[in-house]
């Protein structure tokens, strides 16, 4: 399968790879996917008191498109407020990376990871009720 240049770029030079302390009060962690499906994304955000994402890190087990989708997601989240970050759509990610139809699920997973990370942070801060 031919990959787009942007996918290749993120795959070769993934941005913001890493791991934060999931127990830290200012860190939100989202882990989505399943090994059985061939992709697992862990996306983490570090948020300042005024709700701005200071830093974002990811690690992904999955194909090149999954790695690229999560790498791009961390890039886009940094500097946004958590509410803005939640508005990032899988379609925008898929478009930016020119993902083929069979790889759309990778961008969906990235959106899920963003939402999961934000939700985790909000729960820690008591901004939403535990579910």
């Amino acid at each position: 399968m031919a990959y787009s240049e942007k996918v290749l770029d993120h795959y070769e030079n993934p941005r913001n790879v890493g791991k934060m302390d999931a127990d830290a009060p200012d860190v939100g962690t989202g882990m989505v996917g399943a090994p059985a499906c061939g992709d697992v994304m862990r996306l983490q955000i570090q948020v300042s008191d005024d709700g701005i994402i200071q830093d974002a890190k990811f690690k992904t087990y999955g194909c090149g498109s999954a790695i690229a989708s999560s790498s791009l997601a961390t890039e886009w989240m940094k500097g946004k407020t958590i509410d803005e970050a939640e508005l990032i759509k899988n379609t925008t990610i898929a478009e930016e990376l020119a993902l083929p139809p069979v790889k759309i699920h990778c961008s969906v997973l990235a959106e899920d990871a963003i939402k999961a990370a934000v939700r985790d942070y909000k729960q820690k801060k008591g901004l939403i009720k535990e579910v």
Partner: protein
Amino acid sequence: MKLPIYLDYSATTPVDPRVAKKMCECLTLEGNFGNAASRSHVYGWRAEEAIENARRQVADLIKADPREIVWTSGATESNNLAIKGAAHFYVSKGKHIITSKLEHKAVLDTTRQLEREGYEVTYLEPCEDGIITADMVAEALRDDTILVSIMHVNNEIGTINDIAAIGELTRSKGVLFHVDAAQSAGKVEIDLENTKVDLMSFSAHKAYGPKGMGALYVRRKPRVRLEAQMHGGGHERGMRSGTLATHQIVGMGEAFELARLEMAEESQRIATLNKRFYDKVRDMDELYLNGSATQRVPHNLNLSFNYVEGESLIMALKDMAVSSGSACTSASLEPSYVLRALGRSDELAHSSIRFTFGRFTTEEEVDYAAGQIREAVQRLRDLSPLWDMHNDGVDLSKVEWQAH
């Protein structure tokens, strides 16, 4: 060294230059271009002679009678002709067929079609080293079983089934035995004089012959009958009509002849390369060999690199042409059904790479490939949350994943 390094000899092989030369002699006006079915002139006779010579070359490799060889377009067609042809011809004897979960799609899709036609099919589960035994077949046999179809060598994991033992069983029960030998011809010895196989499928392009060419062995004693799947001029004793492709057939004949002459030496050389490669990677953490370590062909090495996803690994291995057990690349997003059938976890099935070595593989190539593998796996593990969790002592099978 030519990049990318070709380590996918089980997918296909390049045509051996000696084979290509013979093929080229059967194309142009100056060459042997006649129609073998033309009985009235020398062009036809010469083509027929070349084809009969090739038939003998193929028969010689597998110790069969040339009259037992039917030309086809490849192993897929051979499998179709053998399975559907036998099932249709012997339908009055029963409608039960036995095969295995490890078969190639050309067998599995054919038996699925027969199921739609009202046949009943049993799909045997291999043991965890990927072997189908005669005992497994014995247990599945019924009074209305008409056909057993088991591959000789598995295309993904390279394991070898004991077809001699299965043949003894099926013959004693009066059941036909078909073997898909696409991956074994020229790699392991086949002796149909002493092995009780009734039908056997072959492919030319897996053995340094041309694509689009294959053969089906159809036993004469005891005689096996088939219902033709391709109708026309009654070529190949009515079993497979269509003008014979002289150049293709000559290519297959020459390729099988070379295999017969060089197999022993070549297998040893390739086994040495395989070991050399494996020795350079086998100390890696969380590395698994898929399929039996002993009952396998020398040119196949199927490895799972745990916590690394196969497609991304293939992407990282830019300088080598290998194939992944994860069928993500073919858009089905399913891990290899063969590895799943061995009972491998989804992660391990998703993390597998098949390395297949061949006639033109060099030491320099396997050394380079092994180095690149180590580097790529390390890089991707550094990116993998599963690797993190593994190192933190998390039992991944206990995690509640969100399947999607």
